């Protein structure tokens, strides 16, 4: 149909909202509470437009176009209303932009600037200070900075189905709360961090560990190892001012060296290791009549979700630790042994696209290396150490680069260190939804059939469809597999298992939309466009790797020959596998 925006005729499809119509016509209507596909609360009043014939201004995010509609996005009335609405939001918003985590990436700040707001006309109406929620190991909430747009509530309930937070109170006392205001750390929160990604202000951020990492780097007695997750190399460039989805593996390695890390290793190595263990676990379960479908366990937000909401189905989870944790355990045992370094002096730092990894690293059972050495080194309990000491998000790494004044895009490309730095194309794709499944199938096929897999591309499990399924032919034996991303989609597959109607043998789940590339620790903005570009880079990396099957990684072959001896063996059991538990609140 034809409508008219700012005196220009525009063709749009029926059912389009005025906001999307304007944007597709290249006319920017600012918005705050609206987030495409996620939230349309129509609470902020920033996207108001004037429509000929309508008595009042209309919120373009929830108004559908009608034939011949005459819209003005920048009439004096619309512009004034928009400005006043933002000014009202600013009344109760703190004025600490200079020291805010979101300084420079805050939508409210940007909007205030764009709309030409020069002073604060409206006085603060809220009494007292709202307390920060620092109960979570992954996220920090500062309700003072909250403008009640409701995006976090929408993403938590509608995209993730977790429903950890909601509005509480009324009027001036409205705020976003957990149950009884007990804090995110005390309720069924998956720590996925999608709320932090969609928050337009600094009201939800990751728990920052940058200063602890700087201290470790400055400690001459410590050997600080760093590992980088598959999705970081396609995200960190964006945070350093490069185009969306820039693949910057080499620069990232060079940058990390310049920050002072003793060795720059790769979580992708551990991803290959995961595939060996998980692939063998799957075949073992199939052969011995074990619990099926087996579900992947790389995504810590997903693990917490099952523990919180589906404890009866925990036995379906692979017992494999996530690559982050496998790396930590291997670094403080195998690598320590190989290099003769005291594991107590090793600090393992992970760079993850994820906020849930922070929680995972501090799970009490994630101390396999400590128990490995306890007898041998006669360690006392107070010398306890975790396998992974600090887990930083992609955003925190960007902060370290900027604090250190590193000119990221000008860095040369460098290679990961050995022996925990080599990886395959199979590991690269861990970062995208369907990637773990594809990587596992490449290895499982060869393990199961004993034949060489010539076409390694399982394209049916790629892409952004919420739930993907495929029939995989293992030389005559057809197995049904499924891939889900976002916890809501994962919940659908869990309900099938609960009802006994699940037709699958193997399921991959990633908590975040698009997989880790859309993780809660990734640069802001993370949206459909950035996710797509990051995924494209991930598959490009896979495509250009010489070795694309995890079991052909030479460093993996060496670690089994020298250390683990065999998959699912005694050492693997202690260092690479874990257990889960029901959580009560």
């Amino acid at each position, binding site marked *: 149909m034809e409508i008219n925006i700012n005196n220009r005729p525009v063709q749009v499809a029926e059912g389009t909202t005025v906001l999307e119509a304007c944007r597709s016509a290249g006319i920017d209507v600012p918005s705050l509470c609206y987030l495409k596909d996620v939230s349309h609360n129509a609470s902020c009043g920033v996207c108001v437009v004037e429509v000929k014939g309508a008595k009042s201004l209309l919120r373009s995010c929830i108004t559908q176009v009608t034939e011949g509609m005459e819209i003005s996005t920048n009439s004096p009335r619309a512009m004034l209303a928009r400005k006043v609405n933002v000014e009202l939001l600013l009344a109760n918003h703190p004025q600490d932009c200079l020291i805010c985590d979101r300084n420079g990436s805050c939508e409210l700040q940007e909007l205030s600037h764009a709309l030409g707001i020069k002073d604060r006309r409206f006085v603060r109406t809220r009494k007292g200070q709202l307390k920060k929620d620092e109960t979570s190991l992954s996220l920090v909430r500062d309700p003072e900075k909250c403008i009640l747009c409701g995006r976090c509530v929408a993403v938590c309930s509608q995209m993730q189905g977790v429903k950890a937070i909601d509005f509480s109170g009324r009027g001036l006392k409205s705020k976003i709360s957990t149950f009884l205001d007990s804090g995110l750390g005390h*309720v069924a929160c998956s720590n996925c961090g999608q709320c932090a990604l969609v928050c337009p202000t600094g009201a939800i951020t990751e728990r920052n560990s940058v200063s602890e990492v700087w201290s470790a780097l400055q400690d001459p007695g410590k050997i600080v190892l760093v590992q980088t997750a598959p999705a970081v190399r396609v995200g960190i460039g964006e945070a350093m001012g490069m185009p969306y989805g820039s693949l910057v593996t080499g620069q990232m390695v060079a940058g990390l060296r310049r920050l002072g890390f003793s060795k720059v290793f790769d979580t992708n190595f551990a991803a290959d290791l995961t595939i060996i263990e998980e692939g063998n676990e799957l075949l073992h379960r199939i052969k011995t009549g074990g619990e099926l479908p087996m579900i992947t366990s790389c995504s810590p937000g997903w693990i917490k979700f099952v523990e919180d909401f589906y404890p009866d189905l925990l036995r379906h989870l692979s017992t494999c630790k996530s690559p982050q944790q496998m790396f930590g355990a291997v670094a403080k045992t195998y690598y320590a042994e190989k290099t003769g370094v005291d594991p107590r002096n090793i600090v393992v730092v992970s760079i993850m696209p994820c906020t849930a990894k922070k929680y995972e690293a501090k799970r009490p059972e994630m101390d396999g290396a400590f128990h490995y050495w306890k007898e041998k080194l006669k360690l006392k309990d107070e010398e306890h150490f975790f396998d992974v000491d600090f887990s930083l998000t992609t955003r925190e790494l960007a902060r370290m680069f900027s604090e250190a004044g590193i000119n990221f895009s000008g860095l040369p490309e460098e290679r990961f260190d050995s022996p925990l730095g080599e990886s395959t194309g199979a590991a690269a794709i861990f970062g995208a939804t369907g990637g773990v499944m594809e990587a596992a199938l490449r290895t499982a096929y060869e393990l199961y059939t004993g034949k060489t897999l010539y076409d390694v591309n399982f394209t049916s499990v790629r892409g952004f469809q919420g739930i993907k399924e495929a029939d995989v032919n293992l030389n005559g034996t057809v197995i049904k597999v499924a891939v889900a991303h976002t916890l809501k989609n994962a919940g659908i597959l869990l309900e099938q298992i609960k009802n006994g109607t699940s037709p699958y043998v193997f399921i991959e789940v990633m908590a975040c939309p698009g997989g880790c590339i859309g993780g809660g620790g990734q640069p802001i903005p993370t949206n459909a466009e950035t996710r797509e570009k990051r995924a494209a880079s991930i598959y490009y990396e896979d495509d250009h790797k010489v070795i694309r099957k995890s079991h052909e990684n030479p460093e993996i072959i060496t670690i089994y020959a020298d250390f683990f001896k065999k998959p699912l063996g005694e050492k693997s059991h202690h260092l690479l596998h874990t257990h889960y538990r029901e959580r009560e609140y």
Partner: protein
Amino acid sequence: METQTNAPVSGEILDKIIEKHRGKPGMLLTTLEEAQEKNPLKYLPGETLAEISKKLKVPYAQVYSVATFYSFFNLKPQGKHSIVVCRGTACHTKGSKALLDDIEKILGIKYTGDDAESSYTTPDNLFTIRTVSCFGQCAQSPVVAIDNVIYSNMNSRKLLKILSNYTLSL
């Protein structure tokens, strides 16, 4: 006969309440309402909210959202008697702030939260004082409700007399 204890509403008593409302529109509201009514201290403790959440399969955060939205629901124990002072415009111009101050003096407490949403309970749990924005009885302002009985054209002398009856009979 239901036995009077200070135990929060839970278990079978709560099951009965829920069964009565299950499937009906607004079942969360009506369940919360009755659970509060059956509580000897007329409030909804956290454990009751949690149990209602589990039994109705309504997320915790949503139950809390509803319970905090309506001023009818109390999340703190309520005093034996309730005093509600109207702080609407009409009552305000007829001196309702002074009545609030009188109540403070009579009961020997300091009521700090004079905005339409807060309440205060005396340490001995005898009185809960609350303000509301309007009773809709503006023609007879100022208005004070004590134990759900509305007293109109209130003044300090009347207030003292009524409250004395309560404090003396204790």
